[in-house]
Protein backbone atom coordinates (compact mmCIF):
# COMPACT_ATOMS: atom_id res chain seq x y z
CA UNK A 1 0.00 0.00 0.00
CA UNK A 2 1.33 3.42 -0.90
CA UNK A 3 2.03 5.90 1.84
CA UNK A 4 -0.02 9.01 2.06
CA UNK A 5 1.56 12.41 2.58
CA UNK A 6 5.32 12.16 2.89
CA UNK A 7 7.62 9.32 3.72
CA UNK A 8 7.32 9.99 7.43
CA UNK A 9 7.38 7.06 9.82
CA UNK A 10 7.47 7.76 13.49
CA UNK A 11 10.63 6.50 15.20
CA UNK A 12 10.15 8.49 18.39
CA UNK A 13 13.41 10.46 18.26
CA UNK A 14 14.13 13.96 19.65
CA UNK A 15 14.44 15.36 16.13
CA UNK A 16 10.84 14.29 15.48
CA UNK A 17 9.64 16.25 18.47
CA UNK A 18 11.47 19.37 17.33
CA UNK A 19 9.23 22.17 16.07
CA UNK A 20 8.96 22.08 12.26
CA UNK A 21 9.80 25.78 12.01
CA UNK A 22 12.99 25.18 13.98
CA UNK A 23 13.88 22.48 11.47
CA UNK A 24 13.27 24.82 8.55
CA UNK A 25 15.48 27.39 10.28
CA UNK A 26 18.10 24.68 10.74
CA UNK A 27 18.12 23.74 7.05
CA UNK A 28 18.51 27.38 6.02
CA UNK A 29 21.02 28.34 8.71
CA UNK A 30 23.31 25.35 8.17
CA UNK A 31 23.11 25.48 4.39
CA UNK A 32 23.75 29.24 4.21
CA UNK A 33 26.61 28.99 6.69
CA UNK A 34 28.32 26.40 4.53
CA UNK A 35 27.74 28.60 1.49
CA UNK A 36 29.07 31.81 3.08
CA UNK A 37 32.16 30.32 4.68
CA UNK A 38 35.20 31.02 2.50
CA UNK A 39 36.32 27.42 2.12
CA UNK A 40 34.87 23.92 2.35
CA UNK A 41 35.97 23.16 5.91
CA UNK A 42 32.84 24.41 7.64
CA UNK A 43 30.64 22.53 5.16
CA UNK A 44 32.60 19.35 5.74
CA UNK A 45 32.33 19.78 9.49
CA UNK A 46 28.58 20.33 9.20
CA UNK A 47 28.18 17.18 7.08
CA UNK A 48 29.90 15.28 9.87
CA UNK A 49 27.55 16.86 12.41
CA UNK A 50 24.57 15.85 10.26
CA UNK A 51 25.85 12.27 10.07
CA UNK A 52 25.98 12.17 13.88
CA UNK A 53 22.45 13.66 14.10
CA UNK A 54 21.20 11.11 11.55
CA UNK A 55 22.57 8.22 13.60
CA UNK A 56 21.04 9.68 16.77
CA UNK A 57 17.72 9.88 14.90
CA UNK A 58 17.93 6.20 13.87
CA UNK A 59 18.31 7.26 10.25
CA UNK A 60 22.06 6.67 9.96
CA UNK A 61 21.88 3.92 7.40
CA UNK A 62 19.59 5.57 4.81
CA UNK A 63 21.33 8.89 5.44
CA UNK A 64 24.76 7.43 4.64
CA UNK A 65 23.31 5.83 1.55
CA UNK A 66 22.04 9.21 0.39
CA UNK A 67 25.29 11.03 1.21
CA UNK A 68 27.47 8.41 -0.47
CA UNK A 69 25.09 7.63 -3.30
CA UNK A 70 24.66 11.25 -4.21
CA UNK A 71 27.82 12.80 -2.72
CA UNK A 72 30.46 10.52 -4.24
CA UNK A 73 29.35 10.66 -7.90
CA UNK A 74 28.71 14.41 -7.73
CA UNK A 75 32.03 15.00 -5.99
CA UNK A 76 33.93 12.99 -8.60
CA UNK A 77 32.19 14.81 -11.41
CA UNK A 78 32.69 18.27 -9.95
CA UNK A 79 36.27 17.59 -8.94
CA UNK A 80 37.03 16.51 -12.48
CA UNK A 81 35.28 19.42 -14.18
CA UNK A 82 36.27 22.19 -11.77
CA UNK A 83 39.69 20.73 -10.99
CA UNK A 84 40.56 20.19 -14.62
CA UNK A 85 38.89 23.04 -16.41
CA UNK A 86 38.08 25.85 -13.97
CA UNK A 87 39.25 29.26 -15.03
CA UNK A 88 40.39 29.91 -11.44
CA UNK A 89 43.12 27.31 -11.71
CA UNK A 90 46.57 28.78 -11.06
CA UNK A 91 48.38 26.19 -8.97
CA UNK A 92 48.69 23.00 -10.95
CA UNK A 93 49.00 19.96 -8.70
CA UNK A 94 48.75 17.16 -11.23
CA UNK A 95 49.23 16.82 -14.96
CA UNK A 96 47.72 13.84 -16.79
CA UNK A 97 48.47 15.20 -20.20
CA UNK A 98 44.97 15.64 -21.47
CA UNK A 99 43.94 17.38 -18.27
CA UNK A 100 45.81 19.45 -15.70
CA UNK A 101 44.34 19.69 -12.20
CA UNK A 102 44.43 23.04 -10.48
CA UNK A 103 44.22 23.44 -6.70
CA UNK A 104 41.76 26.37 -6.88
CA UNK A 105 39.26 24.44 -8.97
CA UNK A 106 39.42 21.46 -6.67
CA UNK A 107 38.87 23.67 -3.64
CA UNK A 108 35.92 25.28 -5.32
CA UNK A 109 34.45 21.88 -6.21
CA UNK A 110 34.92 20.69 -2.64
CA UNK A 111 33.01 23.69 -1.35
CA UNK A 112 30.18 23.19 -3.83
CA UNK A 113 29.85 19.52 -2.90
CA UNK A 114 29.90 20.08 0.85
CA UNK A 115 27.40 22.95 0.62
CA UNK A 116 25.07 20.82 -1.50
CA UNK A 117 25.40 17.95 0.95
CA UNK A 118 24.58 20.19 3.91
CA UNK A 119 21.42 21.46 2.22
CA UNK A 120 20.41 18.05 0.96
CA UNK A 121 21.26 16.17 4.17
CA UNK A 122 19.52 18.60 6.47
CA UNK A 123 16.48 18.73 4.20
CA UNK A 124 16.40 14.93 4.13
CA UNK A 125 16.48 14.76 7.89
CA UNK A 126 13.73 17.35 8.16
CA UNK A 127 11.55 15.49 5.68
CA UNK A 128 12.11 12.12 7.33
CA UNK A 129 11.42 13.36 10.83
CA UNK A 130 8.53 15.74 10.16
CA UNK A 131 4.96 14.68 9.60
CA UNK A 132 3.65 16.82 6.73
CA UNK A 133 0.43 17.62 8.59
CA UNK A 134 2.50 19.01 11.45
CA UNK A 135 4.67 21.03 9.09
CA UNK A 136 1.63 22.62 7.47
CA UNK A 137 -0.03 23.25 10.84
CA UNK A 138 3.14 25.00 11.99
CA UNK A 139 3.33 27.07 8.81
CA UNK A 140 -0.33 28.09 9.15
CA UNK A 141 0.36 29.08 12.75
CA UNK A 142 3.04 31.54 11.69
CA UNK A 143 0.66 33.08 9.17
CA UNK A 144 1.20 31.15 5.94
CA UNK A 145 -2.11 31.03 4.01
CA UNK A 146 -4.18 27.88 4.43
CA UNK A 147 -4.41 27.69 0.65
CA UNK A 148 -0.64 27.27 0.41
CA UNK A 149 -0.82 24.70 3.19
CA UNK A 150 -3.40 22.80 1.19
CA UNK A 151 -1.21 22.94 -1.91
CA UNK A 152 1.71 21.41 -0.02
CA UNK A 153 -0.39 18.58 1.39
CA UNK A 154 -2.31 17.94 -1.82
CA UNK A 155 0.80 17.80 -3.98
CA UNK A 156 2.47 15.44 -1.53
CA UNK A 157 -0.59 13.25 -1.92
CA UNK A 158 -0.86 13.23 -5.69
CA UNK A 159 1.80 10.62 -6.34
CA UNK A 160 0.66 7.91 -3.90
CA UNK A 161 -2.94 8.50 -5.02
CA UNK A 162 -1.98 8.02 -8.66
CA UNK A 163 0.02 4.91 -7.80
CA UNK A 164 -2.99 3.37 -6.07
CA UNK A 165 -5.27 4.16 -9.01
CA UNK A 166 -2.74 2.86 -11.49
CA UNK A 167 -2.50 -0.46 -9.68
CA UNK A 168 -6.28 -0.95 -9.67
CA UNK A 169 -6.70 0.14 -13.28
CA UNK A 170 -3.91 -2.19 -14.34
CA UNK A 171 -5.71 -5.08 -12.62
CA UNK A 172 -8.94 -4.12 -14.37
CA UNK A 173 -7.26 -4.04 -17.78
CA UNK A 174 -5.52 -7.37 -17.19
CA UNK A 175 -8.93 -8.81 -16.42
CA UNK A 176 -10.07 -7.59 -19.84
CA UNK A 177 -7.34 -9.52 -21.58
CA UNK A 178 -4.68 -6.86 -21.80
CA UNK A 179 -1.25 -8.25 -21.01
CA UNK A 180 0.96 -5.82 -19.15
CA UNK A 181 3.75 -8.34 -18.84
CA UNK A 182 6.36 -9.31 -21.38
CA UNK A 183 8.96 -7.29 -23.27
CA UNK A 184 9.56 -3.57 -22.96
CA UNK A 185 7.71 -2.67 -26.17
CA UNK A 186 4.73 -4.84 -25.25
CA UNK A 187 4.62 -3.26 -21.82
CA UNK A 188 4.83 0.28 -23.16
CA UNK A 189 2.07 -0.49 -25.65
CA UNK A 190 -0.06 -1.94 -22.88
CA UNK A 191 0.34 1.21 -20.82
CA UNK A 192 -1.41 3.38 -23.37
CA UNK A 193 -4.93 2.08 -22.62
CA UNK A 194 -4.17 2.33 -18.93
CA UNK A 195 -3.18 5.98 -19.12
CA UNK A 196 -6.61 7.00 -20.42
CA UNK A 197 -8.57 6.04 -17.31
CA UNK A 198 -5.78 7.28 -15.04
CA UNK A 199 -5.79 10.75 -16.59
CA UNK A 200 -9.58 10.93 -16.87
CA UNK A 201 -10.12 9.77 -13.31
CA UNK A 202 -7.51 12.23 -12.07
CA UNK A 203 -9.39 15.03 -13.81
CA UNK A 204 -12.76 14.05 -12.36
CA UNK A 205 -11.07 13.49 -9.00
CA UNK A 206 -9.72 17.04 -9.14
CA UNK A 207 -13.16 18.47 -9.88
CA UNK A 208 -14.82 16.42 -7.18
CA UNK A 209 -12.08 17.26 -4.72
CA UNK A 210 -12.79 20.94 -5.30
CA UNK A 211 -16.46 20.40 -4.57
CA UNK A 212 -15.74 18.40 -1.46
CA UNK A 213 -13.41 21.01 -0.06
CA UNK A 214 -16.03 23.72 -0.57
CA UNK A 215 -18.75 21.71 1.15
CA UNK A 216 -16.32 21.24 3.99
CA UNK A 217 -15.79 24.95 4.40
CA UNK A 218 -12.47 25.44 2.61
CA UNK A 219 -13.63 28.76 1.15
CA UNK A 220 -14.95 30.34 4.35
CA UNK A 221 -13.53 33.85 4.62
CA UNK A 222 -12.61 35.91 7.62
CA UNK A 223 -11.96 33.02 9.97
CA UNK A 224 -8.65 32.30 11.61
CA UNK A 225 -8.09 28.63 10.81
CA UNK A 226 -7.33 26.15 13.53
CA UNK A 227 -5.72 22.74 13.19
CA UNK A 228 -6.29 19.37 14.78
CA UNK A 229 -2.57 18.80 14.64
CA UNK A 230 -1.15 20.68 17.60
CA UNK A 231 2.35 22.07 17.35
CA UNK A 232 3.67 23.60 20.55
CA UNK A 233 6.97 25.45 20.56
CA UNK A 234 9.00 24.34 23.55
CA UNK A 235 11.84 26.29 25.12
CA UNK A 236 14.31 23.91 23.57
CA UNK A 237 12.95 24.62 20.08
CA UNK A 238 13.32 28.33 20.69
CA UNK A 239 16.84 27.98 22.09
CA UNK A 240 18.00 25.73 19.26
CA UNK A 241 16.45 28.04 16.66
CA UNK A 242 18.11 31.11 18.16
CA UNK A 243 21.41 29.28 18.47
CA UNK A 244 21.27 28.34 14.81
CA UNK A 245 20.49 31.91 13.77
CA UNK A 246 23.32 33.24 15.95
CA UNK A 247 25.63 30.71 14.36
CA UNK A 248 24.61 31.89 10.90
CA UNK A 249 25.13 35.55 11.83
CA UNK A 250 28.55 34.79 13.29
CA UNK A 251 29.60 32.89 10.18
CA UNK A 252 28.31 35.71 8.00
CA UNK A 253 30.15 38.40 9.96
CA UNK A 254 33.42 36.47 10.03
CA UNK A 255 33.20 35.72 6.31
CA UNK A 256 32.51 39.34 5.41
CA UNK A 257 35.37 40.51 7.60
CA UNK A 258 37.65 38.02 5.94
CA UNK A 259 36.51 39.10 2.51
CA UNK A 260 37.27 42.72 3.36
CA UNK A 261 40.62 41.70 4.69
CA UNK A 262 39.88 42.97 8.21
CA UNK A 263 40.84 39.69 9.83
CA UNK A 264 42.96 36.82 8.67
CA UNK A 265 40.96 33.67 9.37
CA UNK A 266 42.92 30.55 10.06
CA UNK A 267 41.72 29.30 6.71
CA UNK A 268 43.25 25.92 6.20
CA UNK A 269 43.07 25.35 2.54
CA UNK A 270 42.98 28.09 -0.04
CA UNK A 271 39.81 30.06 0.07
CA UNK A 272 39.11 32.28 -2.88
CA UNK A 273 38.67 35.86 -1.98
Amino acid at each position, binding site marked *: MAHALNSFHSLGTPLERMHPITKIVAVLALGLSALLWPDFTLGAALVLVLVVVAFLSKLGHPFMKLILGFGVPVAVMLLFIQGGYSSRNVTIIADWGFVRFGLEGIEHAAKLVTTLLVFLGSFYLMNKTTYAGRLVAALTQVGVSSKIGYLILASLNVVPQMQLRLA*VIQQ*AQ*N*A*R*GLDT*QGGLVARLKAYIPIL*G*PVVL*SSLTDAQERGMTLETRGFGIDGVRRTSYVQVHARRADFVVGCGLLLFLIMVAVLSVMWHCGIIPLPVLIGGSR
Partner: protein
Amino acid sequence: MLSVETRNLEYRYGSGHRALKGVNLSLQGNDPVAIIGQNGAGKTTLVKHFNGILRPTSGNVLINGVDVNERSTARWAGTVGYVFQNPDDQLFLETVRKELEFGPLQMGLDERVIADRLERISGLVGLDDKLDVHPFDLTATEKKFCTIGAVLMMEPGIVVFDEPTCGQDMAGNRRLEQIIKTLARQNRLCITISHDMKFVTRNFRRVVVMNQGNVLVDGDVDEVFSQPDVLRRSFVAPPPITKVGRAAGLKETVFTVEGLMDAVKRQKESEV
Protein backbone atom coordinates in the same frame (compact mmCIF):
# COMPACT_ATOMS: atom_id res chain seq x y z
CA MET B 1 -17.57 -28.80 -17.05
CA LEU B 2 -17.15 -25.34 -15.54
CA SER B 3 -15.65 -25.27 -12.11
CA VAL B 4 -13.88 -23.06 -9.65
CA GLU B 5 -12.19 -24.78 -6.78
CA THR B 6 -10.12 -23.42 -3.93
CA ARG B 7 -8.05 -25.62 -1.62
CA ASN B 8 -6.90 -24.18 1.71
CA LEU B 9 -6.66 -20.81 0.01
CA GLU B 10 -4.83 -18.28 2.14
CA TYR B 11 -4.10 -14.72 1.23
CA ARG B 12 -2.06 -12.19 3.14
CA TYR B 13 -1.83 -8.55 2.07
CA GLY B 14 1.46 -6.67 2.09
CA SER B 15 0.38 -5.03 5.34
CA GLY B 16 0.36 -8.49 6.94
CA HIS B 17 -3.43 -8.63 7.14
CA ARG B 18 -4.66 -12.20 6.60
CA ALA B 19 -7.70 -11.65 4.39
CA LEU B 20 -8.35 -15.32 3.59
CA LYS B 21 -7.69 -18.03 6.16
CA GLY B 22 -7.84 -21.32 4.32
CA VAL B 23 -10.91 -21.21 2.12
CA ASN B 24 -12.18 -24.49 0.67
CA LEU B 25 -14.85 -23.93 -1.91
CA SER B 26 -16.06 -25.79 -4.95
CA LEU B 27 -18.37 -24.04 -7.41
CA GLN B 28 -19.69 -25.94 -10.41
CA GLY B 29 -22.32 -25.98 -13.10
CA ASN B 30 -24.56 -23.15 -14.21
CA ASP B 31 -26.47 -22.38 -11.00
CA PRO B 32 -25.66 -18.76 -10.17
CA VAL B 33 -23.79 -18.37 -6.88
CA ALA B 34 -24.04 -15.39 -4.54
CA ILE B 35 -21.28 -14.49 -2.12
CA ILE B 36 -22.44 -12.43 0.83
CA GLY B 37 -21.00 -11.21 4.12
CA GLN B 38 -19.85 -8.23 6.10
CA ASN B 39 -17.56 -5.50 4.74
CA GLY B 40 -14.03 -6.81 5.03
CA ALA B 41 -15.09 -10.47 5.22
CA GLY B 42 -12.81 -11.30 2.27
CA LYS B 43 -15.38 -11.56 -0.54
CA THR B 44 -13.55 -9.42 -3.10
CA THR B 45 -10.18 -10.86 -2.09
CA LEU B 46 -11.57 -14.33 -2.75
CA VAL B 47 -13.03 -13.65 -6.21
CA LYS B 48 -9.91 -11.75 -7.29
CA HIS B 49 -8.20 -15.15 -7.15
CA PHE B 50 -10.53 -16.63 -9.76
CA ASN B 51 -8.69 -14.94 -12.65
CA GLY B 52 -5.36 -14.51 -10.93
CA ILE B 53 -5.54 -10.78 -10.13
CA LEU B 54 -4.39 -11.92 -6.72
CA ARG B 55 -2.23 -15.01 -6.33
CA PRO B 56 -2.60 -17.35 -3.35
CA THR B 57 -0.19 -16.84 -0.48
CA SER B 58 -0.68 -20.54 0.10
CA GLY B 59 -3.11 -23.17 -1.13
CA ASN B 60 -4.48 -23.57 -4.65
CA VAL B 61 -7.10 -22.22 -6.96
CA LEU B 62 -8.20 -24.46 -9.82
CA ILE B 63 -10.20 -23.11 -12.77
CA ASN B 64 -11.76 -25.95 -14.75
CA GLY B 65 -9.12 -28.14 -13.16
CA VAL B 66 -6.15 -25.93 -14.17
CA ASP B 67 -4.10 -24.18 -11.50
CA VAL B 68 -4.72 -20.45 -11.77
CA ASN B 69 -0.99 -19.79 -11.42
CA GLU B 70 -0.32 -21.41 -14.77
CA ARG B 71 -1.54 -18.39 -16.70
CA SER B 72 -1.47 -14.62 -16.49
CA THR B 73 -4.65 -12.70 -15.68
CA ALA B 74 -4.86 -11.48 -19.26
CA ARG B 75 -4.72 -15.08 -20.49
CA TRP B 76 -7.54 -16.05 -18.15
CA ALA B 77 -9.74 -13.22 -19.48
CA GLY B 78 -11.36 -15.43 -22.11
CA THR B 79 -12.25 -18.07 -19.52
CA VAL B 80 -13.09 -15.98 -16.47
CA GLY B 81 -14.79 -12.62 -16.96
CA TYR B 82 -14.47 -10.21 -14.07
CA VAL B 83 -16.58 -7.06 -13.69
CA PHE B 84 -15.00 -4.61 -11.25
CA GLN B 85 -16.98 -2.69 -8.70
CA ASN B 86 -15.95 0.68 -10.12
CA PRO B 87 -16.54 0.91 -13.89
CA ASP B 88 -14.24 3.93 -14.18
CA ASP B 89 -11.28 1.60 -13.62
CA GLN B 90 -12.21 -0.58 -16.54
CA LEU B 91 -13.35 1.72 -19.37
CA PHE B 92 -10.77 3.47 -21.53
CA LEU B 93 -11.91 3.68 -25.18
CA GLU B 94 -13.71 6.46 -27.06
CA THR B 95 -17.02 4.76 -27.73
CA VAL B 96 -19.21 2.12 -26.17
CA ARG B 97 -18.87 0.10 -29.40
CA LYS B 98 -15.07 0.06 -29.12
CA GLU B 99 -15.30 -0.95 -25.47
CA LEU B 100 -17.53 -3.89 -26.37
CA GLU B 101 -15.35 -4.95 -29.30
CA PHE B 102 -12.06 -4.67 -27.45
CA GLY B 103 -12.05 -8.08 -25.75
CA PRO B 104 -12.99 -10.16 -28.82
CA LEU B 105 -10.50 -8.21 -30.95
CA GLN B 106 -7.74 -9.01 -28.46
CA MET B 107 -8.75 -12.65 -28.73
CA GLY B 108 -8.45 -12.40 -32.51
CA LEU B 109 -12.04 -13.32 -33.27
CA ASP B 110 -13.64 -13.06 -36.69
CA GLU B 111 -15.36 -9.78 -37.63
CA ARG B 112 -18.69 -11.44 -38.27
CA VAL B 113 -18.65 -13.21 -34.94
CA ILE B 114 -17.92 -9.90 -33.22
CA ALA B 115 -20.74 -8.10 -35.06
CA ASP B 116 -23.16 -10.85 -34.10
CA ARG B 117 -22.14 -10.74 -30.45
CA LEU B 118 -22.27 -6.94 -30.44
CA GLU B 119 -25.89 -7.00 -31.53
CA ARG B 120 -26.96 -9.54 -28.94
CA ILE B 121 -24.99 -8.24 -26.00
CA SER B 122 -25.54 -4.51 -26.51
CA GLY B 123 -29.26 -5.32 -26.40
CA LEU B 124 -28.88 -7.44 -23.29
CA VAL B 125 -27.09 -4.67 -21.38
CA GLY B 126 -29.41 -1.99 -22.77
CA LEU B 127 -26.83 0.05 -24.63
CA ASP B 128 -27.82 -0.73 -28.23
CA ASP B 129 -28.84 2.88 -28.84
CA LYS B 130 -25.73 4.31 -27.18
CA LEU B 131 -23.02 2.47 -29.12
CA ASP B 132 -21.43 5.67 -30.41
CA VAL B 133 -21.53 7.54 -27.12
CA HIS B 134 -18.29 8.19 -25.22
CA PRO B 135 -18.36 6.01 -22.08
CA PHE B 136 -17.45 9.11 -20.10
CA ASP B 137 -20.84 10.60 -20.98
CA LEU B 138 -22.80 7.60 -19.68
CA THR B 139 -24.50 7.65 -16.29
CA ALA B 140 -22.90 5.63 -13.49
CA THR B 141 -25.28 2.70 -14.00
CA GLU B 142 -24.88 2.74 -17.78
CA LYS B 143 -21.12 2.63 -17.29
CA LYS B 144 -21.59 -0.43 -15.12
CA PHE B 145 -23.63 -2.11 -17.86
CA CYS B 146 -20.96 -1.12 -20.37
CA THR B 147 -18.28 -2.96 -18.36
CA ILE B 148 -20.60 -5.95 -18.00
CA GLY B 149 -21.15 -5.92 -21.77
CA ALA B 150 -17.43 -5.65 -22.45
CA VAL B 151 -16.81 -8.75 -20.34
CA LEU B 152 -19.74 -10.75 -21.77
CA MET B 153 -18.49 -10.02 -25.31
CA MET B 154 -15.62 -12.43 -24.66
CA GLU B 155 -18.21 -15.07 -23.78
CA PRO B 156 -16.29 -16.40 -20.79
CA GLY B 157 -17.56 -19.61 -19.22
CA ILE B 158 -17.26 -18.13 -15.76
CA VAL B 159 -18.39 -14.58 -14.94
CA VAL B 160 -17.65 -12.74 -11.69
CA PHE B 161 -19.67 -9.65 -10.69
CA ASP B 162 -18.44 -7.54 -7.77
CA GLU B 163 -21.37 -5.60 -6.30
CA PRO B 164 -23.38 -5.12 -9.50
CA THR B 165 -26.44 -3.91 -7.56
CA CYS B 166 -24.64 -0.97 -5.98
CA GLY B 167 -26.61 2.17 -6.92
CA GLN B 168 -29.02 0.37 -9.26
CA ASP B 169 -32.66 1.40 -9.51
CA MET B 170 -35.63 -0.85 -10.29
CA ALA B 171 -34.93 -0.95 -14.01
CA GLY B 172 -31.25 -1.67 -13.45
CA ASN B 173 -31.99 -4.49 -11.04
CA ARG B 174 -34.43 -6.05 -13.51
CA ARG B 175 -31.84 -5.87 -16.25
CA LEU B 176 -29.28 -7.54 -14.02
CA GLU B 177 -31.77 -10.30 -13.23
CA GLN B 178 -32.21 -10.78 -16.97
CA ILE B 179 -28.45 -11.01 -17.51
CA ILE B 180 -27.99 -13.55 -14.74
CA LYS B 181 -30.82 -15.70 -16.11
CA THR B 182 -29.37 -15.51 -19.62
CA LEU B 183 -25.97 -16.63 -18.35
CA ALA B 184 -27.50 -19.64 -16.62
CA ARG B 185 -29.42 -20.53 -19.75
CA GLN B 186 -26.21 -20.36 -21.79
CA ASN B 187 -24.60 -22.76 -19.31
CA ARG B 188 -22.24 -20.26 -17.79
CA LEU B 189 -21.27 -20.05 -14.16
CA CYS B 190 -22.10 -16.66 -12.66
CA ILE B 191 -20.56 -15.70 -9.31
CA THR B 192 -21.86 -12.49 -7.74
CA ILE B 193 -20.93 -10.50 -4.66
CA SER B 194 -23.84 -8.50 -3.32
CA HIS B 195 -25.07 -6.66 -0.23
CA ASP B 196 -28.62 -6.54 -1.56
CA MET B 197 -30.38 -9.47 0.09
CA LYS B 198 -33.61 -8.93 -1.84
CA PHE B 199 -31.63 -9.31 -5.04
CA VAL B 200 -29.69 -12.31 -3.74
CA THR B 201 -32.71 -14.27 -2.58
CA ARG B 202 -34.62 -13.56 -5.79
CA ASN B 203 -31.89 -14.63 -8.19
CA PHE B 204 -29.59 -17.16 -6.60
CA ARG B 205 -30.14 -20.71 -5.51
CA ARG B 206 -26.74 -21.12 -3.96
CA VAL B 207 -25.38 -18.73 -1.35
CA VAL B 208 -21.90 -18.61 0.17
CA VAL B 209 -21.66 -16.65 3.42
CA MET B 210 -18.21 -15.35 4.30
CA ASN B 211 -17.01 -14.12 7.63
CA GLN B 212 -13.54 -12.95 8.65
CA GLY B 213 -11.68 -14.68 5.86
CA ASN B 214 -13.57 -17.97 6.10
CA VAL B 215 -16.61 -19.52 4.51
CA LEU B 216 -19.19 -19.64 7.26
CA VAL B 217 -22.01 -21.39 5.40
CA ASP B 218 -22.34 -22.59 1.84
CA GLY B 219 -25.61 -23.99 0.66
CA ASP B 220 -29.09 -23.62 -0.68
CA VAL B 221 -30.62 -20.16 -0.25
CA ASP B 222 -33.53 -21.54 1.87
CA GLU B 223 -31.14 -23.35 4.14
CA VAL B 224 -28.83 -20.33 4.56
CA PHE B 225 -31.60 -17.85 5.33
CA SER B 226 -33.34 -20.17 7.75
CA GLN B 227 -30.41 -19.83 10.17
CA PRO B 228 -30.87 -16.44 11.85
CA ASP B 229 -27.93 -16.81 14.26
CA VAL B 230 -25.52 -17.66 11.47
CA LEU B 231 -26.72 -14.64 9.54
CA ARG B 232 -26.34 -12.42 12.56
CA ARG B 233 -22.83 -13.71 13.11
CA SER B 234 -21.93 -12.74 9.56
CA PHE B 235 -23.71 -9.37 9.86
CA VAL B 236 -26.23 -10.21 7.16
CA ALA B 237 -29.80 -9.06 7.59
CA PRO B 238 -32.48 -11.20 5.92
CA PRO B 239 -34.60 -9.47 3.25
CA PRO B 240 -37.89 -7.77 4.29
CA ILE B 241 -40.27 -10.55 3.25
CA THR B 242 -38.20 -13.16 5.08
CA LYS B 243 -38.20 -10.98 8.19
CA VAL B 244 -41.97 -10.50 8.06
CA GLY B 245 -42.60 -14.22 7.56
CA ARG B 246 -40.40 -15.17 10.48
CA ALA B 247 -41.82 -12.48 12.79
CA ALA B 248 -45.37 -13.58 11.97
CA GLY B 249 -44.59 -17.17 12.94
CA LEU B 250 -44.25 -18.70 9.50
CA LYS B 251 -42.30 -21.96 9.65
CA GLU B 252 -40.99 -21.89 6.08
CA THR B 253 -38.38 -19.41 4.93
CA VAL B 254 -39.91 -17.23 2.22
CA PHE B 255 -38.44 -14.68 -0.18
CA THR B 256 -41.32 -13.59 -2.41
CA VAL B 257 -44.87 -12.38 -1.83
CA GLU B 258 -46.23 -15.43 -3.68
CA GLY B 259 -43.98 -17.67 -1.61
CA LEU B 260 -45.31 -16.07 1.55
CA MET B 261 -48.93 -16.49 0.47
CA ASP B 262 -48.42 -20.15 -0.44
CA ALA B 263 -46.57 -20.84 2.80
CA VAL B 264 -49.39 -19.23 4.81
CA LYS B 265 -51.93 -21.44 3.05
CA ARG B 266 -49.85 -24.60 3.55
CA GLN B 267 -49.24 -23.88 7.21
CA LYS B 268 -52.94 -23.24 7.81
CA GLU B 269 -53.90 -26.47 6.07
CA SER B 270 -51.40 -28.51 8.05
CA GLU B 271 -52.69 -27.04 11.29
CA VAL B 272 -56.30 -27.88 10.52
